């Protein structure tokens, strides 16, 4: 029976992997190495600002091990969602790291780069064809114009095209997570259900093992009826529970997992323990649908300044929320000419983690406060934060007996300018065709 061995060394490029696990994985003669480099979880800043949420040195460490092994063995190395968010800025960042390693290790190879950026004019012309993906409003022209970068998730098709073009390394922009693990399999004619389901699990590497880890290797062996998964670190094992439970993670519906052009249907999937550390998965199906790509975009909201402070006085703590509202009014009154700011308090020890959802908002004996000002410029945010801090520090609340200051400020300077703040403004589907994304071949080294 036809078989394909796929290696996923780490859950996110830059999260690392033990060298021993990687060596053990290579002993299984993988046909391809895939790495997912992205996530929307770290929030809108990284896409909005064009910055990677993973550390450059950590990404370089992983690639410096993966690249030479893939080239030496003549197996493709596929990297999806370069730089964490997969816009052209992130792609360029990751490409530079690859070129640096190639120069240092004297490597030369054919690389495909696949941008995932969406042209704003194209999107504006097709605005009425977009569909919100989740509980959010329809896309507006303003959202499109204000978004700093707009990316869309490519499927496995552009990776297949890049493989057809002879690319040994493929660096993709924003990508549907399973695509880099499934592309070679689908090029070779394996069925989509098992190939994409295997990719869906491999994209998190050893997270689907017990004990789970985002920085360890996982192998998937695909055949025409299903696939078998196992970690290569002897301290971990795949169990039916660990693999099946993975379909729950970060998803709304574990039975039906949508992607570009279709959805994985796991209603008939069977999981079976086939050895101490391996699980066999069969019966995963794929249901085709109209081809559409998921877009993401974020816009600049303003600039942030923070003050971290502690409160220990029980009289103050008992009135804290009232005092903060009074301080909020004082700030508003003082800067009535400039109402274009946001002032927020996180009250740790009361409801700092859950906010209004907190079922038990009872303060502890001490409370931590973060004062957060966001305004149109960093200077304005600094002004609001500073004024709020001094007002709160010396506020004469009812029954005060500690008259020297209301806050324990742990740092000098007390106010921390935190830079640009972004918010998601695009999370919508756009009808497209699989050839929407075009690989470009570059010679490295």
């Amino acid at each position, binding site marked *: 029976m036809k078989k394909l061995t796929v290696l996923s060394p780490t859950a996110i490029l830059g999260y690392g992997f033990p060298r021993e696990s990687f060596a053990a994985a290579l002993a299984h003669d993988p046909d391809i190495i895939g790495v997912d480099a992205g996530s929307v979880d770290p929030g809108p800043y990284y896409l909005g600002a064009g910055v990677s949420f993973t550390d450059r040195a950590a990404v370089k460490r992983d690639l410096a091990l993966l690249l030479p092994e893939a080239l030496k063995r003549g197996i493709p190395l596929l990297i999806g969602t370069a730089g964490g968010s997969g816009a052209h800025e992130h792609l360029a960042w990751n490409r530079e790291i690859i070129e640096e390693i190639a120069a240092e290790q004297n490597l030369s190879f054919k690389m495909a780069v696949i941008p995932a950026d969406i042209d704003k004019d194209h999107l504006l012309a097709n605005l009425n064809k977009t569909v919100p993906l989740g509980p959010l409003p329809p896309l507006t022209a303003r959202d499109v114009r204000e978004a700093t970068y707009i990316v869309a998730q490519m499927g496995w098709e552009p990776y297949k095209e890049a493989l057809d073009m002879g690319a040994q390394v493929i660096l993709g922009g924003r990508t549907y997570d399973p695509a880099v693990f499934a592309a070679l399999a689908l090029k070779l004619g394996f069925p989509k259900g098992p190939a994409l389901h295997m990719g869906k699990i491999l994209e998190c590497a050893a997270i689907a093992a017990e004990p789970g880890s985002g920085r360890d290797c996982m192998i998937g062996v695909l055949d025409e009826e299903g696939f078998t998964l196992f970690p290569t670190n002897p301290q971990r094992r795949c169990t039916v529970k660990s693999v099946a439970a993975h379909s729950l993670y970060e998803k709304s519906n574990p039975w039906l997992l949508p992607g570009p052009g279709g959805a994985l249907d796991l209603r008939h999937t069977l999981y079976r323990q086939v050895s101490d550390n391996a699980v066999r998965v069969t019966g995963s199906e794929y249901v085709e649908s109209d081809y559409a790509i998921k877009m993401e975009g974020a816009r600049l909201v303003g600039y942030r300044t923070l003050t971290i402070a502690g409160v220990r006085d029980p009289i103050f703590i008992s009135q804290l929320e009232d005092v903060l509202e009074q301080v909020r009014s004082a700030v508003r009154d003082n800067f009535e000419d400039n109402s274009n700011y946001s002032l927020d308090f996180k009250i740790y020890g009361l409801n700092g983690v859950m906010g209004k959802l907190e*079922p038990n908002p009872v303060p502890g004996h001490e409370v931590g406060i973060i004062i957060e000002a966001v305004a149109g410029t960093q200077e304005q945010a600094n002004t609001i934060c500073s004024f709020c801090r001094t007002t709160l520090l010396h506020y004469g609340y009812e029954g005060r007996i500690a008259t020297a200051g209301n806050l324990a400020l742990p740092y000098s300077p007390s106010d921390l300018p935190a830079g640009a703040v972004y918010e998601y403004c695009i999370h919508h589907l756009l009808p497209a065709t699989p050839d929407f994304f075009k690989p470009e071949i570059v010679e490295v080294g």
Partner: protein
Amino acid sequence: MKKVALTELAHVIRSKNSGPFELTFDIIFKDDTSFTLAVNSGVFTPALFAGLYKIPEEEVLGVIQYPPAKAIKATIVRPRPAGSLGETDVYGAQQHAPLLTIQVPVEEEED
């Protein structure tokens, strides 16, 4: 009716973003008996999650049983898009605490 703490029946109770606009809860039970008990109790309804998170029931997007992992999953509309102004938990990973208070009614065996 006798009740058992959910924390006695489940070995994973967690929250996490499902994309930037939804928050999803996974309750993974210790064994088939615990899972079946929870499913048959009928307490895992949209109304339960709406009550625990003080949100209207229409903001509970689904409550799903998933036998392959002996799990019950619920998804709600995120209080705000991940990372927007007012955010307290960008990853949504610490919003599970109200679930720890769930009590599951069990049929008492007749003597």
